[in-house]
């Protein structure tokens, strides 16, 4: 990979075949996950603690939502069990954020500050990919599992079995939601190349994302517009949950997919811009 005649230079993309590159990425991905798994499985006590903890906090969240429903059958058009479906989706997304996003690209400000980013950039794998998966917290899968369990249970309570199409739509929009959150995180973290104090921006994300516990229609219309244009992350729970409870129109779903794609493309561009600036500035 390192061409000794040219000295230390980043490997040119075209030097490996496409198939080889994909295989390489696959191997690297598997290796990283395996490393995380090996690390965490050492602490078997974590297993029980994670699930117990996840279940407890989820119950607290359900209880919180139920307070509102003591006084009304429907909030923003959503019944209690429908809202519970959404809460399950929220929990699952939090699991993804805490399990993958925060330990991965969320560590970027720290890496920059401690200089370990340079080491990362030397690796023959795309830096963004490596950064994303280098530190996966597998125990947060407990949040994903308990979240989906809650959604399933809530659907059962509604006497509703989603059709295959609806489940497919849910999975697609869920992944789109993950993509949007990923893109937002990547963009936020890329800012740390320009501003050092950005690590606290993840605090902003957390605070705002809390609003996604409830369906977007539960909020006053003025706020809903703000969410749509300024803070789209608040819609990331509403849309997949809508698929499960049968409220999702195809146009909204398509819009969601479009936004997900756009987010990924834009955030990748921001990332590459930031990286180029970083490497050209000499770190």
């Amino acid at each position, binding site marked *: 990979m390192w061409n000794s005649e040219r000295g230390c230079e980043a490997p040119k993309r075209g030097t490996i075949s496409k198939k080889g590159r994909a295989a390489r990425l696959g191997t690297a991905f598997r290796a990283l996950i395996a490393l995380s798994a090996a690390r965490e499985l050492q602490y078997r006590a974590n297993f029980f603690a994670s699930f117990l903890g996840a279940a407890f*906090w989820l119950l*607290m969240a359900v*209880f*919180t939502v139920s*307070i*509102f429903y*003591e*006084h*009304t059958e429907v*909030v*923003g058009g959503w019944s209690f069990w429908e809202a519970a479906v959404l809460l399950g989706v929220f929990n699952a997304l939090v699991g993804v954020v805490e399990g993958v996003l925060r330990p991965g690209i969320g560590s970027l400000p720290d890496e920059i500050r401690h200089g370990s980013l340079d080491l990362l950039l030397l690796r023959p794998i795309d830096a963004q990919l490596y950064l994303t998966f280098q530190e996966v917290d597998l125990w947060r899968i407990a949040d994903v599992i308990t979240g989906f369990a809650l959604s399933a249970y809530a659907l059962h309570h509604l006497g509703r079995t989603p059709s295959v199409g609806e489940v497919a739509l849910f999975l697609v929009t869920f992944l789109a939601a993950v993509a949007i959150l990923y893109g937002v995180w990547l963009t936020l973290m890329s800012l740390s190349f320009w501003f050092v*104090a950005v690590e*606290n921006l993840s*605090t*902003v994300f*957390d*605070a*705002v994302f*809390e*609003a996604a*516990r*409830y369906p977007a229609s*539960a*909020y*006053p219309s003025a*706020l809903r517009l703000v969410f749509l244009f300024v803070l789209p992350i608040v819609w990331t729970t509403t849309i997949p949950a809508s698929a499960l409870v049968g409220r999702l129109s195809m146009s909204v779903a398509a819009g969601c997919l479009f936004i997900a794609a756009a987010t990924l493309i834009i955030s990748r561009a921001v990332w590459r811009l930031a990286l180029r600036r970083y490497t050209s500035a000499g770190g």
Partner: protein
Amino acid sequence: MTAVAVWSKRYGAFIRSAWMVDIQYRADIALWLLWGITEPAIALGIWWTVAGGGDVDGYTRVSFARYFFGVTLINQLTQAWDAWYIDHWIAEGEMNHRLLRPIAPVHEAIADNIAYKARVGTIVIIVWLLTAAVWPIVRLPVAPERWVLAAVAVVLGAGIRFFNGFAVGLLAFWTTRASDIIELQMAIGVFLSGQLAPLDLLPHWVASVASALWFPYAIAFPVSLLTGTGGWEHHIVQGFVGQLAWLIAWWLLYRFIWRNGRKEYGAVGG
């Protein structure tokens, strides 16, 4: 120098240092303030929708708006983070030099709180005033007597939360999980202190549990005095008596845990 002079100078010096450090961490404080605002804002948003054009058990949109603005302010003025500091001090070996001072570490913590709350409280008040300028609903009726009573209640409420937080934080002398305990308490406190909803609107059993504990006296009571809504505005005497009782209770608990924690520290070091 008299004792009063000595202690005034000590507190003055601590407050001054804490204030100057806070200035440096402006950005951090601003972000934490964001949390302090979004949580009540979300609750208000939902209740606003639920109330619709009418009311929920007597709470109209206007009541909710005033209530949650009050919660935002009072929460900022009473919340206590000292449990995390104590944890940090012990873990990093910074407890030693604090124990060697001729004054107990609790004083530094109190002074720190005063500086922090003065700063953050001012910001929230300004935001409230600005909002009130464009949104008449959140304007409070002018009632200086009420405001004075509310101020006293806020100080007492802050004292309760401080000694509660500090006492639980001192469990760090025995366990590394003290901040987990505090986190759990804070989560439960969201319900029981009236931050999610006025206690009237909670299920009866929850409201009963809350009244038996100190949580409402820290937030719901001062908020009621200030905004005229929240369920405690007609229980002024009961409120103040309860506040004093819980303040003394947590202060005594702090003293007890401190004495024993100090002994534990002297046995096992840090």
